[in-house]
């Protein structure tokens, strides 16, 4: 295994650059990274400007693998839909994904995911955090780990964002021991953005800048007497807030041309993907988009007909857009869900929860394009080849963006392995 294998996108120098930044920055945040999180060997070179991003599309509720990534021809349980060819010879997906099928050359499929939990909440947490949450232990979600791993010191935006459509969002609680700094911030795609990013009513820009000058004066007096990394982190957070306020328009998708907005579509999902693309352009480390409602215990096929269609076109366009703008080579896109659906069809034409054999799709940075990992039997009951679970996947996603998933976080003297140390990535999925 050479270092190059871990750097499928960008150059080897990114890791170094970020590593140097991080060293300074994490000290500033009051936490000191004991070991480098990056798998790259240290090399000399100019500081790269490119950064990686991860976009997770979370299909909440559990999409059916049969009606998406792992169609079965078995008439009894495979459902009414046919499978179609994709842009990669030999790979077939459900006919419900005609546009995404044409992007398969940017993508990879894992058809052999096998987990234990069939409860929505628990399974959701399982795939997000890559580990089983025991009652006494909570693990940070992928977004928090990536935000921490790909952190840069002067970055004005939050590193871990979940998108929403209207309204303004706040900070969530999903970073566990990494701390609230890495927890997700909800960002509205339309006239909202982030809470408190607008000046108080009646305050002019002039008055605002006057009070900040005074604040800086008070801080400089303080700093001339004593210094600490924590003090600097605190004063910096105000400057970061100001930069964030200046960039409020980043969160406003109406800044895009009509053509672009049309191409993404007017659905909530399309709007959030467009916001995600804007954030990827800004090199935000982690963005999550939720697409909820995939829990079809009844009328599975009718619902999938509509839901997959709602997903397919905007998602395919998102990949095309990223690729055309040269963003896909530094962006990992993952289509997640919490479990699959049963091979059997119940009395209400539905499919129930089925964690034993299901699929996940990914695209872009760090993964082997056109790869299909594992397989299931003819009816999709059992995994027949290369059984993997949430733990392998978690390692894989981190490695794909150059984070060494086998190292540890050192949080104020407490040590935490980044991913389950007894497992490793799916090597053949990595580019």
């Amino acid at each position, binding site marked *: 295994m050479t270092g190059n294998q871990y750097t499928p996108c960008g150059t080897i120098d990114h890791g170094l650059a970020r590593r140097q930044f991080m060293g300074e920055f994490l000290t500033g945040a009051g936490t000191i990274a004991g070991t480098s999180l990056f798998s790259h060997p240290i090399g000399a070179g100019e500081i790269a400007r490119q950064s990686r991003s991860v976009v997770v599309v979370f299909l909440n509720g559990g999409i059916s693998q049969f009606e998406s990534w792992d169609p079965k021809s078995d008439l009894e349980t495979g459902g009414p839909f046919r499978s179609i060819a994709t842009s990669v010879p030999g790979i077939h997906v459900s006919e419900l994904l005609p546009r995404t099928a044409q992007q398969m050359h940017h993508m990879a499929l894992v058809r052999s995911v096998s987990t234990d939990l069939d409860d929505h909440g628990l399974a959701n947490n399982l795939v997000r955090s890559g580990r089983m949450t025991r009652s006494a232990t909570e693990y940070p979600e992928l977004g928090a780990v990536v935000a921490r791993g790909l952190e840069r010191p002067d970055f004005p935006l939050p590193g871990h964002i979940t998108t929403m459509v209207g309204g303004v969002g706040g900070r969530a609680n999903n970073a566990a021991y990494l701390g609230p700094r890495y927890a997700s911030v909800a960002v509205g795609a339309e006239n909202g953005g982030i809470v*408190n990013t607008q000046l108080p009513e009646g305050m002019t820009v002039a008055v605002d800048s006057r009070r900040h000058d005074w604040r800086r004066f008070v801080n400089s007096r303080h700093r001339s007497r004593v210094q600490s990394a924590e003090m600097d982190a605190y004063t910096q957070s105000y400057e*970061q807030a100001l930069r964030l306020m200046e960039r409020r328009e980043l969160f406003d998708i109406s800044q895009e041309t009509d053509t672009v907005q049309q191409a993404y579509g007017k659905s909530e999902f399309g709007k959030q993907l467009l916001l995600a693309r804007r954030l990827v352009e800004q090199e935000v480390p982690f963005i999550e988009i939720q697409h909820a409602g995939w829990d079809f215990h009844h009328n599975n096929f009718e619902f999938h007909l509509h839901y997959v269609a709602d997903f397919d076109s905007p998602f395919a366009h998102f990949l095309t857009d990223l690729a055309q703008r040269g963003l896909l080579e530094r962006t990992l896109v993952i289509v997640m869900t919490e479990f699959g659906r049963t091979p059997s069809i119940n009395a209400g034409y539905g499919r129930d929860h089925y964690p034993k054999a299901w699929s996940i799709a990914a695209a872009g940075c760090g993964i082997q394009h056109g790869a299909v990992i594992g397989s299931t039997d003819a009816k999709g009951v059992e995994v027949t080849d290369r059984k993997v679970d949430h733990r392998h996947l978690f390692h894989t996603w981190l490695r794909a963006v150059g984070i060494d998933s086998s190292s540890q976080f050192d949080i104020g003297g407490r040590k935490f392995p980044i991913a389950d140390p007894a497992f490793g990535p799916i090597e053949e999925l990595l580019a």
Partner: protein
Amino acid sequence: MNTIPQPRLLFLLLAILALLFLPASAVAQHTPAPAEPLSHRIDAILNTIHLGPPVPLTGDAEFHRRIYLDLVGRGPTAEESAEFFRRIETAPADRAAIREAVIDDLLSRSEFSRYYAKVLEVMFTERRENIGTLEFREFIRRWLAERRPLNELCTEILAADGTDEDFRAAAGFILNRQADPNLVTRDIGRIFFGRDIQCAQCHDHPLVADYEQSEYFGILSFVNRTYLFTDEKRGNKPFLGEKSEAPLEFASVFRPTAPRSIAQPVLPMSLAMDAEPDFVDPTDAYLVAPEKDKRGVPRYSRRQQLAVLATHPENHAFNRNLANRLWAAMMGQGVVHPVDMHHSENPPASAALLRLLAHELVASQYDLRSFLRQIARSHAWQRSVMVPDLQNWDGPPGGKPALAEMLTQIDAQHAALLPTLTQLDQELSAAAEQLQKAQADVSRLQTQLDDARKRLQQISEQHNSDSAKLTQIRDSHTRQLQLIESLRTAQNEAELNAANEVKSSLDQQLDQQEEVVENAGYKIEGLRNRILALANRKLALGEFVVEARGVQRGIRKRMLQQMDLQADLSQQKSRIGILMQWLESRNRLEQAQASESSQSAELSAGLELRETELVESWRQSFAIRRIRPLNPEQMSSATYFALEMHRPVIVRATEEWRSGNHENPADHDNVLRQQEFVTTAVAVNLWDTVEDLVVTRFAAPAGAPQDSFFATVDQALMIQNDATFQGWLKASDGNLIQRLEAIAEPEQLAIQLYLAVLARMPDPDEVQMVHDLLLQGASERTAVIQELVWGLLASSEFRFSM
């Protein structure tokens, strides 16, 4: 409010403030004075390990803000600061006594109990909610106000089941964790013993050799019988029930094929409960057997045992953890840090100090105030945060040779400890063998007991079916007699004979079955007696286990002492090493500079790094004070009091008190009640206004350790733009903005501004700056005053304690 003319309002305020901050109790503390107060002994220990230049005590203003923040959770008000500075100015020679008077005054206020209730509540719940925060705080506040011992508070918290209304809040520790046995086990380990044994749940701790899987299961065995019981008859409120179940077994996930071990209820340091009584029938084990609508109450409650053992003065892990956590609350850093990582790989900055603190905490009968008073009086607590001038320091007397000599001595002392440790190790192995033997005897008896119980159950079942059969035969017999009687009356000879034959067969069966039943009855009695005898025997043998654990505990105690000595030697060695490296770095740089070598720049950078390391080592050993962020509660209280939002509340509450009570300044009790009424009103108002908003942004999420610092953009955005926050900056009701508006003279305004928000006097440059800003913005004076206040509130000086 608005009808009161201004001068009278001011007078009223002053009177109330004087009243509010009167010492709550004039009762003298009757603690027998030890030869040397704890504060001196703390300093004596820390002075011996500090090899750097002496660090001065902090200035008066820093002291004053620091002590207010640490004891009552807020900064001093402008009046309090002005009064303190005046006293120092009048009698600068009495500085130490004036400082001690401030410490004593704060400790005697009801505000102290109120703030420490928050500190302890956050420590116990880590912001998990179920039993409400306020309810839990009120319980602790009352406890502290009554000056009851801290260890007994901890006992109540582990013992409470939520049924007693007066103690219900105490059950919050377990209720807020849904009585989840693994979570409760981990957090008892962390919060009561300072040991995070979570990873020992599935195997021996991978990183920490001290934490064995048996330790995890030792605690778990005390709590795994406790469960959440929701009472439909009492509004679906949750309570704690307890079952009496078979012992826990565990196996390592790394060695799944190895025989499983039976978990013994034992706490760290071999602290175990008495031999556990046995019962003949499972139902005998209960006062109330658990059912769907009945809360289980065992005759012998393991959790009650835990409550006593966990908080017992003989429990060193408990004492050390509590002393360390209180020290950390005052110093911003534990003697062991992080505070839940007591183990040999993470030695205390000074084991001697930790030992002393734990010992004195016990000696004070776990009296919070006297313990904190001594810490606050120590030079260690009163040190400056300023880094001493290293340019003009030549290293410790004797220089490097003296340090090298120290290292040699340390190595010799270290070597001298080894034989004792080896011997103790052997003793411990021997004791472990004894324990194992005693445990094996008990286990054998347990097997016999289990067998006897099984047989008893079988025989009882057989007995039941035999008795049923006997009843059947009796019934047939009775019917047969009736038949014979009726045949006799009917003089039906032929059938009578046949019936008599059947009867005699039934007679025979009846005799046989009666015998069977009778015999089984004897067997049952015999077995019950046997079980009783075995149970008594097991109890008696259990005494040997208890004794063996006592021996182990004794050895561990001596071992701990040796390990403390060892830890201190290695810590001192590493500190000397750091100092020597710094000296060496500086020498090399001086030489290079003398010879104008080109390496100077590189060496100078190297020296800087060494210097950082050196200063950090001094901070870790409490020679220099660390600059500390305010905790979320301090941040909200400090904001609230800086903006003087308490003033109108005090006025209103006092009026309300006067309208319903007769005021009598001569009656101490009356004064106290009024003080309590007013402080309660302020606390409630603080909670309703500032606390929630600020804590939401500044506190770590529920269930996470609450001692980490983080600065996030949403905090800054809230302070900059949040409408509620901006609302507090509007002039109203005698708050700070209104008070400043009324001051015409810029210098006076600057003084009041700085006193109120930063608890210090402004220097001439700062006065000038305020003056200039007021001049520039003369047309919008109120806005400028708001900006001035905002700038100080948003500053790093406000966010941190020096």
